[in-house]
């Protein structure tokens, strides 16, 4: 039994990493209606800023604050200078532009910090708690706690504040929002800024495990996108739950189903994703898009 619980706990820890990045993807989608493939790269660049602060002798917490500030500015500037030109056009073009940003931003990080993976300090002590035969690292607990807190904050932002309502309105229908007097361009900048700032938090949380390098989140991005889509692209809660789902199902299928084993385990959550999306195209927690005729 404790073996089973251990696998679940490990899966939740890995799933939290997917969920952290998925949250940033959801945030951009919720506030601008786009899917941002460069989300991981922006997070990595911000994390490198935290790394630089730590290298210069600063405490990690200061590094985190500087990284988040840097992320917010970076996201806003990129939205203003690059992404703005693609908004309102063909969404496919915009997506390709964000892939271009992914390559560009990774390249910049690589040019400055090189591609060697480096150890990154953790915000949480490197200790393990034994709870009834199950071992949980403090780092995973901390990561998960921060993730849940951010998720709740985002839910509140979108559901319970005027700003969130305005951001949703802009994402949904920029034309009508502008006519109702909302500062559309500033709200779009803000959406990208907050998402990139959140990415910085995610980056700092997962870097101790993944080791920081410009390509740190490349593969994580695939899982994060899957989590975002499975959970429903506009639902922070869905992104996190789906991240956990992928992490846990992957582990259990690998350990218990001999035919699947470690070779095929990653296919299981994706197969589940296809089934869910066939039955519920808007994702587990997403809202259905209603088109009025």
């Amino acid at each position: 039994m404790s073996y089973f619980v251990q696998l679940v706990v490990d899966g939740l820890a890995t799933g939290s990493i997917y969920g952290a990045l998925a949250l940033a993807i959801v945030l951009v989608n919720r506030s601008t209606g786009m899917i941002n493939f460069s989300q991981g790269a922006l997070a990595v660049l911000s994390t490198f800023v935290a790394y630089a602060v730590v290298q210069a002798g600063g405490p990690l917490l200061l590094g985190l604050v500087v990284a988040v500030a840097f992320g917010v500015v970076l996201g806003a500037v990129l939205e203003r200078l690059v992404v703005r030109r693609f908004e309102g056009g063909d969404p496919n073009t915009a997506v390709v532009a964000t892939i271009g940003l992914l390559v560009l931003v990774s390249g910049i990080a690589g040019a400055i910090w090189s591609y060697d993976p480096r150890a990154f300090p953790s915000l949480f002590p490197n200790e393990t708690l034994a709870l009834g035969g199950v071992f949980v690292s403090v780092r995973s607990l901390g990561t998960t706690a921060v993730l849940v807190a951010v998720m709740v904050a985002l839910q509140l932002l979108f559901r319970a504040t005027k700003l969130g309502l305005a951001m949703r309105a802009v994402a949904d229908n920029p034309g009508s929002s502008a006519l109702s007097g909302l500062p559309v361009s500033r709200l779009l900048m803000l959406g990208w800024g907050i998402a990139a700032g959140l990415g910085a938090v995610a980056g700092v949380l997962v870097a101790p495990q993944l080791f920081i390098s410009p390509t740190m989140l490349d593969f994580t991005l695939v899982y994060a996108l899957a989590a975002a889509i499975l959970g429903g692209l506009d639902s922070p809660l869905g992104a996190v739950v789906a991240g956990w789902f992928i992490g846990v199902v992957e582990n259990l299928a690998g350990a218990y189903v001999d035919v699947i084993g470690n070779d095929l385990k990653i296919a299981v959550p994706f197969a589940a994703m296809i089934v869910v999306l066939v039955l519920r195209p808007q994702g587990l927690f997403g809202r259905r898009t209603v088109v009025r005729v």
Partner: protein
Amino acid sequence: MKSVQHPRRLSGAVALIGVTALLVSGCTREEASTPSSSGTAEASPGITDTTVSLGISSPLSGATAGPGSCTVAGLDSFLEAKNAEGGFTFGDGKTRKVTLEYLDDAYDPAKAVANFRQLVNKGIFAYVGALGTPTNAAVMPIANQQEVPQVLLTAGAGEFSDDQQANPWTSGFVPTYTTEGAAFGKLLVDANQPITVATLVQNDDYGTGYLDGFQSAIEGSQVKVLDSATYEPTDTSVDGQVTQLAASKADVLLSAVSVTPLQVGVLTKAQSLGWKPRIFLPSNTSTPATVLQPGGAAAYPDVYTPSFAKTPASPAFANDPDVQAYNTAFEQYGSKITKTYTPHCAWSYAEGAVLGEAFSTMEEPTREAFMTSLRSISGFQAPLLLDGITIDTTKEDQAAVFTVNLVRYNGTGYEPVQGY
């Protein structure tokens, strides 16, 4: 509206011109290369009376960038230091300086092939020391078809060394993974007691090589494998696999993981579960500073790894003349390419010496003569190799180095090991 459309049209035109220019330049380069490869001169491409040009493509970006950069940096250090002394003396009596062209393939086979073609078009004499099994496997058929030497590869898969009849232009440098796995299996068998083992291996030739070597060594002995798991190099974490293996409570963990962060993850995860087996690490993820210290390896009763080269930073070798020469050369040349040490830096430095040895008996400036010389080295004491390990390229189914010594982690570095 107009002001918006004009720039778009303009940028479209610029893009079109750019693409056309790329296509045209790509085509011309291809055409230009044809005459040089079908030239009637006696000398092969890339070699003159005073110079010889070598090429390498290794991962200089991505997760394998550390080892990849070292395969360039160590080699460059040896070659440049030798150039500074005047150059390499060849078997035809001439002295030539060596130039090294290097490109980044990010461990991507498609890029490695493109890089190889680009280097050959630029006129390299030989392709040397490239790191990576999938990348070199993609290059191998082309190199053999074009008869370009693809030699002394820093790739441990058996396929580069075990059939030299089929691939006469390819050779491996470092011991194969099978050799490493077998060395560890033999250590356990020699202990002559019942030992249980769990294995975690990469799901490709790298992992199966290890497992094959290990299993053939333990066959019929008291050593039993209780549980095995695999992982993909792209996995975010191998915690699930380690949890699964920990349930076996095996005495020993063979962790043939080639990705640095994942190997650190194995070391931290197993001890966090209260499972502290003796651990065997492959030579490419056993660097103390980047793997063992971050992973808290001191918690385990023993950590073993195969080795065939001296660690230049180790105090034990501080007075070794080879190590001193390496350190001076690396400081001056290699450190411009990478500052992070992995054993690949030492290996590729030794590989430079092997090239020099082959040059010294090469009587004609041709690729054929080079391959003949390169395939007839035996008992050569290359710099930085551990005592008792020599270069032997005459075996038809082995890499240039096919013996390893096992060493044990002592909390700071490695020391020789006598038994289990």
